[in-house]
């Protein structure tokens, strides 16, 4: 009999991703609806103390696979360890975050376990002991209600889409000592863009498009910093080589839903809107009063971004001052 909800909590370099807390909170809600237990699973190296903190998100048990060989995410080792854990636990539901790691791991695991999977889910409900997941398709132009069958049922939730709720759980730690399996992939090196807020997890994003006119993003960066947010870009700006591909927001870039999205010098093409249309609040700054972005923005300012944006930054600083 399958039983229980397993939330896979992703950590990188000793810090949990924000979406991991969202996955636990949502996992707890589903577990309560099913009348079952919530178990958190953490993989990594030197992570036991960190893992204990998940008790405050409702975890009844916390399974910790602490192993030097798991210090970096590599698909084959992580899939092997999780595959063993899930085969033993036989959960009804597996929930995790749709980070790049979560998407990759869950896809491979779903095939290994023969599990139904819904990717990039924005809301979940329980119907007759099965999950119905709402997820964007066609780059966010459509929302699909998808019924999951069989067991386990895997839901991979979009960062920033669900709320993080603390609740006390017993948090009993169990150490997992399974081996990491046969390795076909080897980790060579990692390069981090230091100090950058990951776009998909940012509360505020300030994006610059072709209207930036070049690779000098100082005005946009200053506003992002004042708001405690991240810098994004349109595809045109990326194509021009002004910004790295990892900054691209849109149907073929990152899909983001921050509390506040500020589009500077972005016209609002359908592919761009697909990537940021679910932002809670949108501000557009564009010198063309007919730019399509204004029809999606909560507030718009018509004007030259190089005049407006620095003044907005100043006002924000005064307010936060």
């Amino acid at each position, binding site marked *: 009999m399958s039983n229980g909800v397993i939330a896979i909590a992703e950590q*990188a370099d000793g810090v949990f*991703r924000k979406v991991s807390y969202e996955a636990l909170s949502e996992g707890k809600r589903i577990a309560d609806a099913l009348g079952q237990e919530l178990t958190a699973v953490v993989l990594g190296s030197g992570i036991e103390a960190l893992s204990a903190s998940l008790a405050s998100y409702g975890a009844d048990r916390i399974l910790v696979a602490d192993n030097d060989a798991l210090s970096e995410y*590599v*698909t084959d080792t992580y899939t092997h360890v999780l595959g063993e854990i899930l085969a033993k636990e036989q959960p009804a539901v597996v929930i995790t975050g749709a980070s790049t790691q979560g*998407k*990759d791991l869950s*896809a*491979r695991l*779903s095939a*290994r376990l023969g599990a139904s*999977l819904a*990717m*990039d889910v924005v809301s979940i409900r329980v119907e007759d002991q099965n999950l119905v997941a709402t*997820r964007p*398709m*066609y780059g966010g*132009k*459509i*929302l*699909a*209600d*998808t*019924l999951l*069958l069989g067991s386990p049922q895997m839901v991979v939730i979009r960062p920033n889409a669900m709320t993080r709720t603390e609740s006390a759980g017993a948090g009993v730690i169990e150490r997992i000592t399974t081996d990491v399996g046969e390795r*076909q*992939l*080897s*980790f*060579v090196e*990692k*390069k981090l*863009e230091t100090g950058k807020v990951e776009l998909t*997890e940012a509360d505020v994003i300030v994006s610059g498009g072709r209207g930036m006119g070049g690779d000098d993003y100082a005005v946009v960066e200053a506003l992002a910093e004042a708001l405690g947010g991240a810098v994004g870009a349109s595809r045109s700006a*990326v194509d021009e080589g002004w910004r*790295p*591909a*990892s900054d691209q927001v849109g149907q*073929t*870039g990152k899909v983001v839903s921050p*509390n*506040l999205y500020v589009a500077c010098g972005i016209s609002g093409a*359908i*592919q761009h809107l*697909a990537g940021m249309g*679910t932002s809670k609040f*949108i*501000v557009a700054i564009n010198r063309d*009063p007919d730019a399509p972005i204004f*029809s*999606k*923005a909560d*507030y718009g*300012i*018509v004007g*030259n971004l190089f005049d*407006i944006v620095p*003044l*907005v930054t100043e*006002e924000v600083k005064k*307010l936060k001052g």
Partner: protein
Amino acid sequence: MEIYVLLKQVPATDSQIRIADDGVSIRTDDLRLVINPYDEFAIEEALQLKAIHEGTVTVISVGTDKTQEAIRSALAMGADKGIQIEDPALAGCDALTTAKVIAATLQPLSFDLVIAGHRAVDDDNFQVGPAVAEYLDIPHIPFVIQETVADGKITCHRTIDGGTIVLESSLPALLTTQRGLNEPRLPSLPGIMKAKSKPLEVKGLADIGLDAETLGEPLTRILSLNLPPERKAGRIIEGESPEEKAVALVEALHGEARVI
């Protein structure tokens, strides 16, 4: 090198998507269909690898006969052969079923590398590539932005949240593409002419040793498609000067919207 590219035909990204009367599929009349943008990266990368290591580039697509247009475009870009899998039993199949079909097609063939997109921009599943690799029991590397093949190994740079990592894998392996990998070429006119006579095999489930029963019922089912809530145009912040507009915007964001 024997390279296989997994290709899906999808609506062009500038399409307006309309829900069909059945409520669970989309209207396909007037829809412009193209090669999934991430699969274009896959074709381009395969062609560049072939230019270095020689061999063959074969495109595999599961879909209806419409899909042949997309396969022909890939052949026009320079791929050598196409395989189209079509079967009535595959209508409405989910990602894992598609992956099983592709894996069954590849199983008897000899290959060094399979390249897929990291997602198809219609269903946005992010699932078929890793699932094919799992069924074939070969390693996969997702979100690849750079690769080199040497000494029977492939070294890949892949994106992660907040950076990149470098991984090495034995071959055969499967890669999924990420933006930044390359700039896909456009089909040339002679390429388009040549494509017409390149081999395109059409196979059904029986040809790849599968049947509807073995595949089973899909584990996911779309109950309904809905349009996201329409965003309404908000308010243009007016003002005599840029200063006034900036002040009014920040006031509104703080007082009215309460987002800062």
